[in-house]
């Protein structure tokens, strides 16, 4: 069960000829795949690709009708290897992932695929997670395209064009026997827009046709001497074929006047912001009627030399707009023009930033410098450009810088991982700090306040592997953290298997929250939920024992901080040899609430007896030390100022978003903090027995309270 239901979006996939699709680009891409007659789709979830995966897994019915095989791949390498179905057979296949991280994982399979080449169209949807809001290292997928010689499409952020590029991408792939990458940036994936749909296409040649009539060709296998021939093929056959196709179908676009002394070359993805920047300079209108000639590279690899020459001919200066570094395209442009002896001066990273988002602001600044130097007259009477600098310079705003605190992401309310790290922090208080190698996933938030746990992170599922160097016993043990997502992605072998085989002495903490939560709560092998199209319910414990782990402890209720603490302490102190593996399991609260809330609401409505728990703080018992918050950071646990002149510090307070996970109480108990937390069990539709019990108890209690109140002397009314 994914974080949200895509029932509505799935209906978009049924749209037929001439109907208008409205929605996110990533969903438009999904629809585009079906329109292009794809036979199989695979991939691995992760922003900005998750929605593609989620929609398809909710769309099994439609996929069934079209005979499309959709898989949630074990990892990106699996997905890339899946494309081998298109090597021998005229099958169109597509896979998708977050890049560059996913491409890193996939590159072995991709390199093999690109070497042997393909018969059917093979398309890789690349969610380029670069710039603001990115959750990964800042790199370009471009390099992978060049090194393995896969064509790289970077279409203008326009639904219609992107969808068309999917179809063209498959054709290009087939025309040049080369796998093709379609790169879409985060903002484009989440961009709302529209396009006119076409009917979905059922592939003529099916997967069964392939299976029932297998074909083989030694020449497609990456072994000498074929491997050498592949390289020659790439140079002599596939590249020229691709260039012909790209030119013939005009995949790259020209805008603005044909002549003129300057021009701008840009990646397709940059188009919208480039137009806006030009508009601010008075050089374009809102509809993209520009006074500067533009060469828009919807295909950024291969570079079409002849097109670049045509564009540069007669121009004095050309600006290359290329996001990210190094500046591959600018270098290519230089080579092309020098070879052809064209004189145009080339501007690029010298006036534009080398790294980071090419925001309208960044482009605007770069363009101004470019025009100043290359063609100042073009700027005409310079309409006033938007400028926030005067405001930001105001003293009052300057002062604000020191006031506004950072708001880093954190674990959700009631997250089952919170108590695990609270326990780890407490263990550190007893046994001293340990080296913690973190992993990718929600649990990586442990590196941020309030926990500040975690020394390194080396990539998805590699938390265990990145503790390898610390395998020898003696001295403190290392703690390696891994999520269930990372565990099944590769951690079972790269982390646990490796640790068992090399007799690693350290602690391996596997956090099992029943889903691939950080990417949107998709099911995985060890998910508990029944899934009619997948086999779930395969315990991690069996897997680790299967690869030879012997010291394995399971904590099936992570909120039991005391137990969590004891198990961690045992793992760090036991004399047993080999890896100490702890599997801490509790359901992701975000998904649990989505699952349970409606059921509870219905039960209450139907008059059934329902107990709901939530926590509170006795403000007059709380001393405002906030130690509890330093061991929690739960969004629902905050502080509030009391109207008491005798109190200096705000006291802890819990708001209505509390889901009663129990962490607060457990922590204050385990850390011996203070008795100010209470848990309230609220019973809806209580049974007569409940009512009777509580009534008689309250009567007795009321009597005692009354007795004491009578004797109490007070100065101010309570």
């Amino acid at each position: 069960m994914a974080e949200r239901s895509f029932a509505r979006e799935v209906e978009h996939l049924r749209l037929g000829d001439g109907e208008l699709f409205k929605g996110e680009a990533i969903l438009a891409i999904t629809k585009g795949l079906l329109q292009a007659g794809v036979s199989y789709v695979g991939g691995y979830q992760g922003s900005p690709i998750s929605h593609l995966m989620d929609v398809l897994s909710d769309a099994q019915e439609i996929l069934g009708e079209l005979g499309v095989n959709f898989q949630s791949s074990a990892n990106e390498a699996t997905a890339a290897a899946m494309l081998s179905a298109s090597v021998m057979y005229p099958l169109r296949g597509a896979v998708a992932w977050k890049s560059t991280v996913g491409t890193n994982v996939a590159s072995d399979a991709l390199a093999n695929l690109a070497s042997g080449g393909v018969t059917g169209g093979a398309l890789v949807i690349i969610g380029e997670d670069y710039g603001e809001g990115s959750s990964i290292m800042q790199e370009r997928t471009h390099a992978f395209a060049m090194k393995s010689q896969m064509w790289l499409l970077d279409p203008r952020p326009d639904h219609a064009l992107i969808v068309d590029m999917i179809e063209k991408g498959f054709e290009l792939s087939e025309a040049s026997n080369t796998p093709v990458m379609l790169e879409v940036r985060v903002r484009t994936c989440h961009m709302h827009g529209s396009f006119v749909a076409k009917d979905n296409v059922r592939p003529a040649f099916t997967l069964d046709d392939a299976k029932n009539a297998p074909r083989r060709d030694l020449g497609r296998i990456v072994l000498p001497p074929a491997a050498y021939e592949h390289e020659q093929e790439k140079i002599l056959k596939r590249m020229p074929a691709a260039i012909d196709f790209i030119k013939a179908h005009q995949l790259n676009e020209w805008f603005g006047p044909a002549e003129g002394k300057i021009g701008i070359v840009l990646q397709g993805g940059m188009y919208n912001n480039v137009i806006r920047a030009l508009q601010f300079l008075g050089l374009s209108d809102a509809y993209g009627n520009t006074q500067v000639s533009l060469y828009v590279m919807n295909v950024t690899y291969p570079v079409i030399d002849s097109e670049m020459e045509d564009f540069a001919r007669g121009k004095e200066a050309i600006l290359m707009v290329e996001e990210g570094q190094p500046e591959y395209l600018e270098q290519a442009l230089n080579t092309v023009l020098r070879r052809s002896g064209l004189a145009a001066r080339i501007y690029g990273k010298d006036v534009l930033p080398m790294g980071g988002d090419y925001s309208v602001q960044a482009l605007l600044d770069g363009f101004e410098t470019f025009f100043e130097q290359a063609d100042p007259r073009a700027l005409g009477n310079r309409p006033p450009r938007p400028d926030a600098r005067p405001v930001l310079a105001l003293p009052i705003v300057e002062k604000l810088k020191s006031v506004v605190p950072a708001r880093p992401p954190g674990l959700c309310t009631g997250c089952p991982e919170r108590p695990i790290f609270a326990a780890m922090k407490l263990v550190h208080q007893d046994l001293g700090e340990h080296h913690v190698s973190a992993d990718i996933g929600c649990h990586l938030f442990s590196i941020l306040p309030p926990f500040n746990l975690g020394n390194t992170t080396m990539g998805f599922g590699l938390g265990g592997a990145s503790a390898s160097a610390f395998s020898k016993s003696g001295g403190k043990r290392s703690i390696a953290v891994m999520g269930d997502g990372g565990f099944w992605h590769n951690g079972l072998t790269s982390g646990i298997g490796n640790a068992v085989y090399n007799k690693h002495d350290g602690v391996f903490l596997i956090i099992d929250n029943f889903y691939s939560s950080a990417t949107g709560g998709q099911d995985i092998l060890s998910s508990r939920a029944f899934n009619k199209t997948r086999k779930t319910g395969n315990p991690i414990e069996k897997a680790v024992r299967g690869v030879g782990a012997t010291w394995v402890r399971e904590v099936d209720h992570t909120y039991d901080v005391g137990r969590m603490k004891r198990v961690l302490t045992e793992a760090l102190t036991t004399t047993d040899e080999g890896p100490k593996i702890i599997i801490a399991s509790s359901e992701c609260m975000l998904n649990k609430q989505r699952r349970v809330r409606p059921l509870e609401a219905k039960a209450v409505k139907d008059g059934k007896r329902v107990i709901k728990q939530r926590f509170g703080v006795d403000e007059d018992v709380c001393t405002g030390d906030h130690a509890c918050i330093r061991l929690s950071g739960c969004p629902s646990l905050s502080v509030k100022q009391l109207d008491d002149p005798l109190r200096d510090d705000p006291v802890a307070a819990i708001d209505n978003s509390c889901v009663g996970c129990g962490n607060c109480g457990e922590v204050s108990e385990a850390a011996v903090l203070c008795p100010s937390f209470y848990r309230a069990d609220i019973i809806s539709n209580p049974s007569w027995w409940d009512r009777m019990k509580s009534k008689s108890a309250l009567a007795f209690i009321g009597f005692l309270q009354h007795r004491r109140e009578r004797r109490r002397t007070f100065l101010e009314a309570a």
Partner: protein
Amino acid sequence: MRNETVNLRIDAAGEATERPISIAIVAMGGQGGGVLTGWIVKLAEDAGWVAQSTSVPGVAQRTGATIYYVEMMPAQGDRVPILAQMPTPGDVDIVLASEFIEAGRSILRGIVTPERTLLIASSHRSLTIAEKSAPGEGIADSGAVAEAVGVAAQDSIIFDMNVLATANGSAISSAMFGALAASGRLPFPLAAYHAVITADGKGVAASIKTFDAAYQRALNGGEQLAPPEAASAAAFPERSRPSSPHAEALLMRLEAELAPAVVPMARAGLAKVVDFQDLRYGAEYLTLLDEIHCLDRYLGGSEHGMLLSIEAAKYLANAMAYDDVVRVADLKTRASRHRRVEREIGLRSGQIFATTEYMHPRMEEIVGLLPARLGLWLRSRAGFYAWLDRRISKGRRVRTYSPGWFLMLYLVAGLRRIRRASLRHREEVAHRADWLALATRLAHGNYALGVEVIRCQRLIKGYSDTHARGQSKFAKVTDEIQRIAARADAADWARRLRETAIREEDGGDLDGLIRTIRAFA
């Protein structure tokens, strides 16, 4: 370059002035910013406009700060506008901020500018982890944001949309949508907004209710931009009839003995200690306070606004009403507490509730309750003491409102009668005496320093470990203060020492500061 610009063609390209309306929504992950974005887009599309939205959820989807961006333009036949994918500083028409500090952040991003930006923001605060986890007071000053809004925004609609939304049973997005409608910045009729919400189909009734409430609220001009609840401004409780003539007498004594400036704090203090123990304890409080008050007068405290007495009135009360098991049991068993919990959990009719307390009593607490002699004897028997501690010290879930547990708590609370004889009380009295003695001694030479020493009591609070840590900090700080007492800037150092000590769990380096001070000396 410039001189070239003199005789230039000045025709702008097409209708360069024709710009889309740009809207930025700054929110926290999981706050429904996406929903609001979707609504705004639909609003425009329903009116036949072209609208584009983008976002970068990324990891921020988990409670971090994030931003959504919408651009919209009337469609010109088949001419499709090219819309930007991110806000440009100085070019945003409307900014919707779902939280007040996020509004501040949007100003720092440069997307709120006096030439064009309407800022619609909720004045409520959702505290960041840094603000919450700071030991003591760490909440950012909303006033600074309010000021900045004044100079950065062309226009603003600000009120607590969170409270309004909760009150009307919906999410803050509905309230913000209502404020947007009321602003009239978008050329769409009210009905169009309603239509969008209705079409959504989820929780429509509540959303519409919230929307309309926010719409009205915004029309009535939102809220005046005063810094929301300044932290220090704590109101003194209204004076009400004391419960007995003896209490009345105490109050009269208080007012007779103390300077008017000291009275309000002293009243609050007196009320606290009497509530903690009894009237006799209150008299004790007044006697101690009066000694300091006399000294204050003698030292010409009136020039200092009787600061020494006022601070003493505050911290003496806190010192006398120390946190012990008896007090906790007392507070947890009061009728007023039962009512407060009912309120806090929003108990509806037909529901019943019970509470569980998470307690972890240790031998320290038990010994503290015992008569001083017995307590000391037990402590001297290390082995036996440890043996007992192993039996006692464990987490206990106390079902407050089950007869058995309640009776137990009730009896513990009843121990207040023998509290004065307890070991804990004796230790607290000793501590109190040393502290006041030190303060008065130093005040003679340096009034400000005396005040600072009084304030050091703030370091001692909490239970068990927290309390122990507090005591050691207090000792460290006061020792150092005595070492530097002679220096002219002693008071200033004393303040720094205390504030550093408070922040210790959170990066404050007390020992470091002490080393620095000694290096100076």
